[in-house]
């Protein structure tokens, strides 16, 4: 079953196109990372899903309901941590959670919810207007979790959270996914969604530029890792034997360091042996593969391998001319 189906969604504000012809499907039970820099159209898309904004063109269906016409039915099964929200300054955190439970007709224990998101019981009884950003973020995560929603929509949920809070957020996302909930997790930081998401979609300038699993994205960019070997070598070191190792994507040499970028993590050791055969290796450093650079390439409009479109079924690659 599809938890989220967006077809040809375009949202314009006057002359500004915030989202252009977006097509996206998220399956039930999936943890989906919705990535993109600030202003890419992520929050606009989310606002359409909740019925806050009306699509200029196209439709969005959430949990089988039309997002605009059946917004209330959508919201009764969705847990939302929005972007750019505010709390009622004179209500306590606990009152916010209790009202959410009441409105959703759920039977959660507000104190259990507050404990789960790591808000101190004393703080929960103080006016939410006095909260720090991180505390408000925990509170709104708690509000989103009430009523065991079928779909969690989290818009930049880790902003303002300390490392401990981010860790807690991750484990909550995992627990919710295990319970069977779909999670739609928006962020501008790839490292954040990488650890919890099954698939990611990358938005840039209002367009979806890639949709794929983390593994496929990694493979596509050749993110098998990087080996850096400090060598006592002649400057004219022959790099060809290293280049021919299966799974090696790129080899550079300069400043006494040979840098080998691998498409396959298993290529690192054979590559290192070839370097060792050719010269004396004095030190070795291995960089963990990261998707950051891929993300940057996509969002700068210079996606790699343009002749090899992303394997995701709904990706559109029209460059970043919006």
């Amino acid at each position, binding site marked *: 079953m599809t938890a989220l189906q967006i077809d040809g969604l375009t949202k314009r504000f006057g002359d500004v196109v915030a989202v252009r012809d977006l097509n996206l499907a998220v399956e039930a039970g999936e943890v989906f990372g919705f990535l993109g820099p600030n202003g890419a159209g992520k929050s606009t898309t989310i606002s359409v899903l909740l019925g*806050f904004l009306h699509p200029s063109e196209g439709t969005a269906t959430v949990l089988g309901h039309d997002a605009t016409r059946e917004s209330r039915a959508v919201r009764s099964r969705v847990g939302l941590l929005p972007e750019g*929200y505010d709390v009622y300054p004179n209500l306590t955190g606990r009152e916010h959670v209790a009202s959410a439970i009441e409105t959703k007709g759920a039977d959660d224990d507000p104190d259990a919810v507050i404990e789960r998101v790591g808000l101190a019981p004393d703080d929960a009884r103080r006016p939410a207007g006095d909260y720090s950003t991180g505390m408000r973020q925990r509170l709104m995560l708690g*509000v989103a979790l009430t009523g065991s929603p079928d779909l969690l929509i989290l818009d930049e949920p880790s902003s303002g959270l300390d490392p401990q809070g981010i860790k807690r957020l991750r484990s909550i996302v995992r627990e919710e996914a295990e319970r069977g909930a779909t999670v739609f997790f928006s962020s501008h930081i790839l490292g954040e969604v990488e650890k919890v998401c099954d698939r990611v979609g990358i938005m840039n300038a209002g367009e979806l530029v890639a949709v794929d699993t983390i593994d496929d994205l990694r493979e596509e960019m050749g993110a098998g890792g990087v080996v850096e070997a400090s060598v006592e070598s002649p400057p004219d070191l022959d790099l060809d034997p290293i280049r021919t190792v299966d799974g090696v994507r790129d080899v550079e040499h300069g400043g006494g360091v040979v840098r080998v970028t691998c498409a396959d993590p298993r290529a690192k050791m054979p590559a290192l042996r070839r370097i060792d055969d050719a010269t004396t290796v004095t030190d070795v450093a291995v960089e963990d593969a990261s998707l950051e650079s891929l993300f940057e390439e996509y969002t700068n409009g210079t996606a790699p391998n343009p002749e090899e479109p992303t394997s995701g079924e709904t990706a559109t690659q029209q460059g970043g001319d919006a």
Partner: protein
Amino acid sequence: MSTFTVARDDFRNARRSYIVLGVIGVFTALTALIFVAEIDIYDDPYRVLFDVLFFVSFVFPLLLAPLAYLSIAGDRTSGAIKYAMGLPNSRAEYFAGKFLSRFGVGAAAIVLAVAVGFVISLAFFVSTPDVVRFATFAGITLLYTFTFVSMFVAVSASTDSRSRAMFGTLGLYFVLIVFWFGFLPLLNIGTLLDTVESLLGVTVSEDTRNYVGLLSPGTAYLQTCKAVYGGVLGQYESFAQFETGDELYAQTWFTALVILAWGVGSLAVGYLRFQRSELG
């Protein structure tokens, strides 16, 4: 159920900001002051009500304005509406909850002030206060409160800007009270009709002028309060201000309908605008 939750949360939030206490306290205190000040002037408490009703018609909307103008616009500017509307509340439920909470505060101020006035009358006035007259007065004033809260909440629902909400609210007060009552000698409904006469070269009959004059909720409220003075209209000279003819505009039910129409009409317009609006 969720209308109740929205209203309760809104009321709690407002109560703890002291605006609720402010509106109820100030209005009750000023009403009590009018009663106390007139203990030695009039024997009949209903004569004091006449001064209170003028006070209500001019001043009470100015207390309701700060109470209501940010009811919805404030949530939209701050983003608190994303909390409320992220929950399964329909726009109608949210709108109704906000309205009920603010109207509740205005209504509480009226009920308390009239009750305090009644007690002061009972204790210090020569004539015993008439429960029916006080209750009638409270009822008509609640209708007036309903209409002004409706108009201000409707303005608030129509915009996501604090300053527009404020200008809208003050604009309504200026047009419906200051302009219609004729506080400004050169800028009022009478001079407007004079201008119409001279520009179009027509004569506006006295009857038409009277009808137009009673079409503001403020003037209509004054006229509707005639119902408080059944049987005693001849007792005081000031009561001559009430229209007493057979014309439609002199009928209490007609002016009450005018007040109601302003309230219901603005609620409808405000809700429709809110229902179609986009929430940032």
